[in-house]
């Protein structure tokens, strides 16, 4: 009885609070409103970036929280934001000086100062539940606020890429700055929701959040306009509408709603779907306009990872044989309508990396190791060499065991590519099957038998971060968990030597490039994992109400057009009304 009473009260209260709190909202014309579609899964009210695990910046909160600087990937430039500058003040990359913009303010009028920056940094240092805790503890020695606008960070070891990886907001990485005057008063930051009223520095205020939508209204006192960073945004209201379900499900209904101009942008789509949207609504465009591949490259190129510590994947011949069984041209034809999406690299082909891949050193290694080759005969020969023979079902077997080629993946994003890979592997004699179950990620982390369809999410400008994923320090023993992205557990001291030499060097050092090429060559020779596809974000940009979306032809500030990334704030703030 009591439970029922409590529950009923909660339900009634729940309905009432949403109803009551929303009544102060004004109606806004559609031409001033930006409507975005997303599957909102974070709990209602979680606006505090330190409220892990529930908080995410992806569902509109990127418009609340800003960083010291942003990165425009397509212009390959840094966009200074809360900080006027961040400079390495020692040539061996052991000291960083940050200067905060004097006009930066929180939405409640309090100025943003070095105290907030220091508070944010110290939080990451001390709180072992925050995402950059490990990075701070690995690199940072001491931090001081020398005056109200300056922070000096001294590193324990040279950290040439710390500023870019940790302090710059781009895609989904980087650390926003949080308000000291709010969070220092809270007992347990992990349990503090934040709510709609939490002071933030971004251009929009969260005015409504219920189970169906999040509504943000423009803050006309936004500091960045007065500071000259950007002109006043034309979007007066942003609605992030919950399309329900899991991210990636039910996309045909979402596609319909885009065609009907109910949504201005949504999460990204499959190749065939976006093509049809463009056919039915001429006002919708994509990053590449009306041409394939209808999207921009994301930093998450996928490979089939394997646990290189476990039999039989520990044999380089087996890994190579698997790669030889993958027909990358057929993948392009069947899944991507001919667009060249299949890849041989563990990093995305952004300007900096494209240059690297086209360099003569890398090209000659590519010719030598032929990473993209499709040759079922050679595959067979290698497997026989490794001691396998085909059993009655046509599968490779050794000592009575077949080679598990169960591909662990995620239904929402891999449902088109994985079944095809499984069939290719099965045709080549590997015991293939699909696992889109809830244990897929866990299996990858635990290093279970099979192959893991996962991305690399590491390199953006130079190949170091991606290559570093295969360093022996991440080669954890079988039975323990590998961290995210480090599923290969590869162990090779030669490889480590190359990477360790690269670590303290600046990325434009010619010796750095030569070493990177050498490491990539080793990656190909050893076939540490099997690179499959570049990852595309095919986001529909509906220009009926808003244009000036960042595209290939309209580079804008250099950011990609995903509204859910940290740089989404810049995307929304630069949109212009269509008429």
């Amino acid at each position, binding site marked *: 009885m009591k439970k029922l009473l409590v529950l009923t009260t909660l339900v009634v209260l729940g309905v009432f609070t949403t109803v009551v709190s929303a009544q102060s909202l004004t109606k806004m014309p559609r031409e001033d409103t930006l409507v975005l579609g997303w599957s909102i899964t974070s*709990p209602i009210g979680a606006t505090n970036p330190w409220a892990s695990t*529930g908080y995410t910046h992806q569902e509109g909160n990127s418009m609340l929280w800003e960083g010291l600087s942003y990165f425009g990937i397509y212009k390959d430039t840094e966009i200074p934001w809360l900080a006027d500058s961040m400079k390495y003040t020692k040539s061996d990359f052991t000291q960083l000086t940050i200067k905060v913009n004097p006009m930066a303010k929180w939405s409640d009028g309090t100025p943003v100062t070095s105290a907030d920056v220091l508070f944010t940094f110290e939080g990451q240092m001390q709180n072992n539940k925050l995402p950059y805790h490990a990075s701070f503890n690995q690199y940072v020695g001491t931090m001081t606020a020398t005056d109200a606008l300056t922070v000096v960070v001294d590193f324990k070891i040279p950290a040439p890429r710390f500023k870019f990886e940790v302090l710059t907001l781009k895609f*989904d*990485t980087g650390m926003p700055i949080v308000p000291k005057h709010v969070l220092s008063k809270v007992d347990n930051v992990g349990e503090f929701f934040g709510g709609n009223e939490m002071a933030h520095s971004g251009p929009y205020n969260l005015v409504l959040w219920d189970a169906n939508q999040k509504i943000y209204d423009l803050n006309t006192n936004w500091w960045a306009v007065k500071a000259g960073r950007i002109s006043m945004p034309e979007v007066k209201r942003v609605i992030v509408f919950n399309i*329900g379900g899991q*991210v990636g499900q039910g996309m045909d209904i979402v596609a319909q*709603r885009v065609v009907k101009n109910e949504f201005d942008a949504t999460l990204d789509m499959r190749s065939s779907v976006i093509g049809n949207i463009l056919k039915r609504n001429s006002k919708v465009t994509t990053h590449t306009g009306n041409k394939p591949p209808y999207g921009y490259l994301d930093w998450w190129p996928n490979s089939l990872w394997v646990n290189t510590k476990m039999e039989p994947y520990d044999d380089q011949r087996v890994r190579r044989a698997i790669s030889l069984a993958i027909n990358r041209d057929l993948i392009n034809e069947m899944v991507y309508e001919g667009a060249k999406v299949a890849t041989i690299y563990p990093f995305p082909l952004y300007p900096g990396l494209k240059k690297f891949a086209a360099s003569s050193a890398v090209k000659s290694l590519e010719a030598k190791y032929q990473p993209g080759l499709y040759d079922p005969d050679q595959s067979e020969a290698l497997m026989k060499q490794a001691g396998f023979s085909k059993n009655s079902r046509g599968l490779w077997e050794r000592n009575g065991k077949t080679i598990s080629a169960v591909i662990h993946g*995620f239904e929402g994003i891999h449902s088109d590519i994985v079944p095809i890979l499984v069939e290719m592997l099965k045709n080549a004699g590997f015991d293939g099957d699909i696992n889109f179950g809830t244990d897929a990620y866990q299996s990858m982390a*635990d290093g279970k038998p099979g192959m893991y369809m996962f991305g690399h999410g590491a390199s953006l400008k130079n190949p170091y971060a991606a290559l570093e994923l295969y360093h022996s320090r991440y080669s954890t023993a079988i039975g323990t968990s590998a961290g995210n992205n480090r599923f290969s557990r590869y162990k090779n001291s030669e490889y480590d030597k190359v990477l360790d030499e690269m670590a303290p060097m600046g990325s434009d050092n010619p010796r750095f490039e030569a070493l990177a090429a050498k490491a990539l060559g080793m990656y190909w020779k050893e076939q540490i994992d099997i690179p499959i596809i570049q990852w595309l974000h095919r986001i529909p940009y509906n220009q009926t109400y808003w244009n000036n979306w960042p595209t290939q032809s309209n580079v804008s500030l250099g950011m990609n057009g995903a509204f859910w990334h940290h740089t989404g704030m810049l995307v929304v703030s630069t949109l212009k009304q269509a008429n």
Partner: protein
Amino acid sequence: MLFVLKRLSFIFMVVWAASTITFFIPRISDVNPIRERFAELARLGGFAPGDLEKIVEAYNKSFGLDKPLWTQYFDYMSGVIRLDFGVSLNKFPKTVLMLIAESLPWTIGLLLVTTIFSFIIGNLMGALAAWPQSPRWVRSFSTSCILFQGIPPVLLAIFLILFFGLHLGIFPIAGAYTIGSIPELSLDFILDVIWHQIMPGMALVFGSLGTWVLSMRGMGITIQGEDYVLFAEHKGLSPMVIFRDYYLRNALLPQVTGLALALANVITSAIVVESIFGLPGVGTILINAIRANDFLVIYGIVLFLTIAVAILMALVELLYPLLDPRIKVE
């Protein structure tokens, strides 16, 4: 009084059974909901914290997940008795009760209306199907309703969207209300919400009609042979009166007991229908929790449902003697 006590203890036992079964099943898989949350974010953006495993460990410790399973079981049970259903590990710091409370309004309306509608329409059709005086077309129509049973609500939902939503453009194809509507206690908004529930409602109603028609028809035929109906006929009462007072009323009684169980089954169909139509109800929360193995939320929702159904069943049994004076409470 004894009866009430017996019923209460029965409910208690049912709840205990349900919670024990659901407790251990999600633990078979060693999927960790905290790691899954990071995986979810990683898949979308490719980013996850540097030392993911250490973070997961830190969370495990603070939630007591490193204790042996039996200890966790007893901790959980004692929490339940104190009405503490715990927090969602996947969506920390939201509590399980809050998650249910926020999503319940969107499910209750739909389910309640749907179950009542299909109960009324289904039983009426079933009764008419067995009534010899009803016209031929009514009887064969009712029989074809049984074929509807074969169309799972899932498929129905898809076809309804295609036909009524897209082709004819009458109904909205998804969402709980129009984008940008501001939730308030106005007639406009309430009508908007109801308009958006029509198609999901139709999908659920058509799917569950069949069972009612079938069972009611069986009931009806049995009753027709009863003496009191023959007597009423001989008395010369009009067919309308016989149909309503003697036939329908008596046939309906046993059906009411099935109502509670029907509610339980509609909930599972609601899971899929809600995700097709993008309604943020309990079904969506549950399926998300299952995918992330957020077991505390799973327990909470299953418990909640079982308690609701068990209470409903007990209520029905309690009210039954009021409807049918022939039954005496033992």
